[in-house]
């Protein structure tokens, strides 16, 4: 049974992506006790799956390394992975959260030596790579995974593979008897930082995602460009493994669209501008990018990043929402539409089309087990009715990393205000 020591001076942070980690660390570094919950087996969230950040083109796992080091050095944060909140009762200053813990089948004896993975034969989709490629069913979610412990995929439990993993482990780290459990955690305040999910591109029917292999999403493209990804950082298109040199980026794939997401997801324009660099990095001689857009939203100081991409001869800009995509005989996706600046019709074949999919709050369609005020897109609003449950990061708005971290820092203070009040009352 997992033992969690928490009181109503504890801050419960739900979500272990960059926002949740930030909220947890900022609160802990201000001297507060924190319980940090993550649904997946490792912390890091979606930013850990990005290759580079705009506008610096630096690597997200560099910041993750720092945050993990802060975490390792700070005994005030208790991390629970594979944890989901199923209920929250009580009120500001006195909450009890019911948390479901899924079994990892690997205990803290694990040294991450990898012997279990060698022993296991079953392969499963690799969610870290958005299922582009497979991994062993005994796996470490990524090279940066924290906790640095292996996981057994539930599909092999009860199969000889699980036994093989157990037999291969010299350290008694495989525990096939682990069961799902439910724990209650006290908290004075809750920071809800469950982040976002990419909009389901298959719903944008005219673009044929799911029908055409060479139509992929922007988050998948990150994995293709990443040296840690399924292609070792080479941009190879899914249909035939050919190098994709002529890449189209379609903006507002789902965003600004009343058939899909009515809001603008803010980060997609910058993400595509950034991804044109990947194309150039992969094919310095003959890489070519085309951005189809309605408005380029390179907001505030990111404008210069846009101007630099704009000045790059290998990148073209077409003011147009692509009407539809078809596939030619060579498996090339063909974008059809009209450049609205002066009405020019086009049907352009590309090696690969990347849909800049919108940002949907993870909370959308998922009942937060407490009464929360959200806007029409499902983002948590700042509202007194939420008591001491504070949204942070992309659970509150379509934000880029920078703004998500700011939001999480602010949420940490709001949570501290509540637990400080509890502490003052208890003195």
């Amino acid at each position, binding site marked *: 049974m997992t033992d969690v020591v928490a009181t109503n001076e504890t801050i419960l942070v739900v979500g272990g992506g960059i926002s949740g980690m930030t909220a947890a660390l*900022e609160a802990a*570094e*201000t001297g507060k006790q924190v319980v940090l919950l993550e649904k997946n087996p490792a912390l890091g969230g979606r930013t850990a799956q990005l290759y580079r950040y705009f*506008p610096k*083109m*630096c*690597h997200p*796992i*560099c910041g*993750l*390394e*720092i945050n993990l080091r*802060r975490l*390792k*050095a*700070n*005994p005030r944060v208790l991390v629970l992975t594979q944890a989901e909140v199923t209920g929250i009762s009580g009120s500001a200053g006195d909450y009890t959260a019911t948390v479901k813990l899924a079994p990892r089948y690997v205990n*803290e*004896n694990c*040294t*991450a*030596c990898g012997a279990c993975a060698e022993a296991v034969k079953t392969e499963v989709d690799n969610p870290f790579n958005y299922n582009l490629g497979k991994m062993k069913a005994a796996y470490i979610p990524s*090279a*940066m995974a924290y906790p*640095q412990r292996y996981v057994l995929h539930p599909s092999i439990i009860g199969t000889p593979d699980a036994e093989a993993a157990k037999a291969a482990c*010299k350290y008694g780290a495989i525990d096939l008897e682990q069961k799902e459990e439910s724990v209650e955690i006290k908290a004075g305040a809750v920071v809800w930082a469950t982040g976002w999910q990419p909009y389901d591109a298959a719903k944008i029917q005219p673009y044929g995602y799911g029908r055409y292999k060479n139509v992929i999403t922007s988050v998948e493209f990150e994995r293709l460009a*990443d*040296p840690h990804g399924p292609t070792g950082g080479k941009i190879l298109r899914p249909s035939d493994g050919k190098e994709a040199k002529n890449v189209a980026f379609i903006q507002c794939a789902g965003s*600004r669209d009343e058939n899909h997401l*009515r*809001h*603008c997801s803010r980060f997609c324009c910058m993400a595509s501008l950034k991804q044109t660099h990947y194309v150039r990095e992969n094919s310095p001689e003959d890489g070519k990018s085309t951005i189809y857009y309605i*408005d*380029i*939203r390179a907001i*505030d*100081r*990111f*404008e*210069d990043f846009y*101007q630099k991409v704009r000045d790059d001869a290998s990148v073209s800009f077409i003011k147009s929402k692509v009407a539809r995509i078809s596939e030619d005989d060579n498996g090339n996706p063909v974008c059809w539409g009209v450049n*609205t*600046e002066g*009405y020019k019709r086009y049907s352009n074949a590309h090696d690969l089309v990347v849909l800049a999919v919108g940002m949907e709050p993870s909370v959308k369609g998922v009942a937060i087990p407490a009464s929360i005020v959200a*806007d*029409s897109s499902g*983002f948590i609003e700042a509202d007194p009715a939420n008591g001491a449950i504070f949204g942070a990061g992309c659970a509150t*708005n*379509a934000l880029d*990393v*920078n703004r998500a*971290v*700011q*939001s999480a*820092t*602010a949420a940490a*203070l*709001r949570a*501290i*205000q509540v637990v400080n009040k509890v502490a003052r009352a208890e003195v």
Partner: protein
Amino acid sequence: MAEEKKFAAYICKGCGLGDRLDVDALAGVAQKEGKMQVVRQHDFLCNADGVAMIKNDIANEGVTHIMIAACSRRAKTEAFFFPNNAVARTNLREGVIWIRPDTEEARETTQDMAEDYVRMGCAEVKAMTAPAGNANTGSNRTLLVVGGGLTGMTAALEASKTGYPVVLVEKSGQLGGWAAKLWKRIPAHEPFKAPADTGIADMAAQIAADPNIKVYLNSTIAKTDGAPGRFVVQIATESGAVSTEDIGSIIQATGFDLYDANRLPHLGYGKSPNVVDQAGLEALAKAANGGPILRPSDGKPVTSVAFVQCAGQRDTSGEHLPYCSGYCCNASIKQAMYFKDSNPAIDTTVIYTDLRTPGNGEDFYRSAQEKGVIFTKGKVGSVAPGGNNCVVNFHDLILDDQNAQIEADLVVLATGQVPNSGINIDMSAEEKAEEAAAEAAAAEATASGAQPLQFSKKVSVLNLTYRQGADIPQFKWGFTDSHFICFPYETRRTGIYTAGPVRRPMDMVQAREDATGAALKAIQALENAQLGRAAHPRSGDLSFPKVRLEGCTQCKRCTVECPFGAIDEDERRFPLFNESRCRRCGTCMGACPVRVISFENYSVDTVGSQIKAVDIPDEFSEKPRILILACENDAYPALDMAAMKRNEYSAFVRVIPVRCLGSVNTIWITDALNAGYDGVMLMGCKHGEDYQCHFVKGSELGRYRLSKVGDTLKNMNLETERVKDLEVAITDIDNLPRIINEYAQQIVDMGMSPFKGF
């Protein structure tokens, strides 16, 4: 504290270490060469039993210094958590067996490598002490907020709500700043359809009623002295009075000015009263007080209005603002609604190139369209002022009409935000000259009675007494934003945070978030200051640079190079370290030519003794030795992850993690070369415009110092290639092993260093 020191080495045999290495031989090295008093082996050191063994030694055997030879210092940190002891981690797993082939031929060199690492671990731990932290730093818990606009007011209220006293200083005679000049604001809540009340009056009332917040109006900061937890701030009031406040930490929320529309004569500003900027329109709307907005030229109600977006912004000519201010599209939409809400018959057009309404601003945009605001994608060339109306000439980009025109009673220019960030302390000589020229030109123009060009000489906001300058260093275009994406509050002055549009162009929603976040960081800074703990990125670090003043030559390199302005000079011109400003990067230590600066657990000695501990085989062994000094934030994790992938690299290298390339003292390199190392690789983060160094200037300064190593090499008659400076990113998991191997081959080809055996 003259505590008895007892050294213990623990060598793990798990994860294949026992199979791949001769652990008994390693234990022998630890005991004989490493002079460890306790040496233990364990089959599985990180499990409960292994950890209990170490804890027992601490409790019952008096062990104070621990050398753990097992996996990387990045792994198993919960198990090997001994905060009260000096701990060195020797990396035999990721550092040795995972990067070496498991073959008979490789066995000897792999064992050599492991033994050297044990030697190094022992040497390191012997040179370390567990940092105790300095409790004698300040403990003031009051926040100073500079600027009484929305951002400053928010920061003050939030800090007060958290339980901290606040001093709020506002330059003007009332609180509210830019927001107080607005008729309405952009909505912050569902349904995002109509302009909303600013709420500023309410905030001002809350501040007035808060006994925890002390407000100074008509006041500026005359002087800021001290460090987090013990700032002493002089506040000058217009009346001439000067007050002194003791302050724990500071939030600078000095906001922005609108870009001067006088610089946009081609858009008719200054030529017709009917061309206004966004502030001008807010003033008209306020005056109208809900009634029809009147045309300045003749006081008649406006019947048509055109908004020109990006006026003097997103400029590529170099004449105006190169950036987008981010909020103006929504602001113009809001202002367009002032007209449509009062009278739907008013022709209202917004001319834009890219409409930028992120998030639910899209709803606000749609709402404006529903209300009949016309949006036209076009580039405005000029505004021709007439008597009572103006003609906006633009290129209609959709209809591809170069000569499109709109006639309007009123034209509103959406000029952008210019930060009030004080003096640019990093200004180059050229920039200073440019500024002086502009000042002279303005003075001349004014004297000759021509159209006065706006020129206001920048004055300091904070008047810091810091040796490195009176204000916060700026990032781009005067904004004081952090350069870090993951860490938006990282300014280069510990305990001083900026928030709101001074930091980055932003709207009110974001300014509020920013202010709240900055309040947390300021509170955190003062809390940690009084505990002697470091701020980000080595948060919680209790180590602190100690300086042996008697050896100091007053060369001032440390005071100049400290990326965080932590070091001043005392009246005797010796460096004066302000502990709570320090981020523990060690740049000062790297800079010091006489090596008088050190940390308890990281010093010239902790690294130097490791370098010296390595066994250097003789010239004829065909076993060169290459020293790698790797930044612990990026290069070292990259090497670790390469090992997790089992990427192999040369057994000739010996890696020592360093806090930052900036902390690398050139003595380490000369020592290494003198000791007979055949090559030295330095692995640091990217520097330059998009630098990635977590200590801002560390890697740049480190590289600058290393560029001078060439002379040393020349003097020693060594090839310059024997020292290699590498820019490494954390993702270089495949590149790095390749580069190491290529370098090792290059060294082999070059031949062994002649300095061996001296």
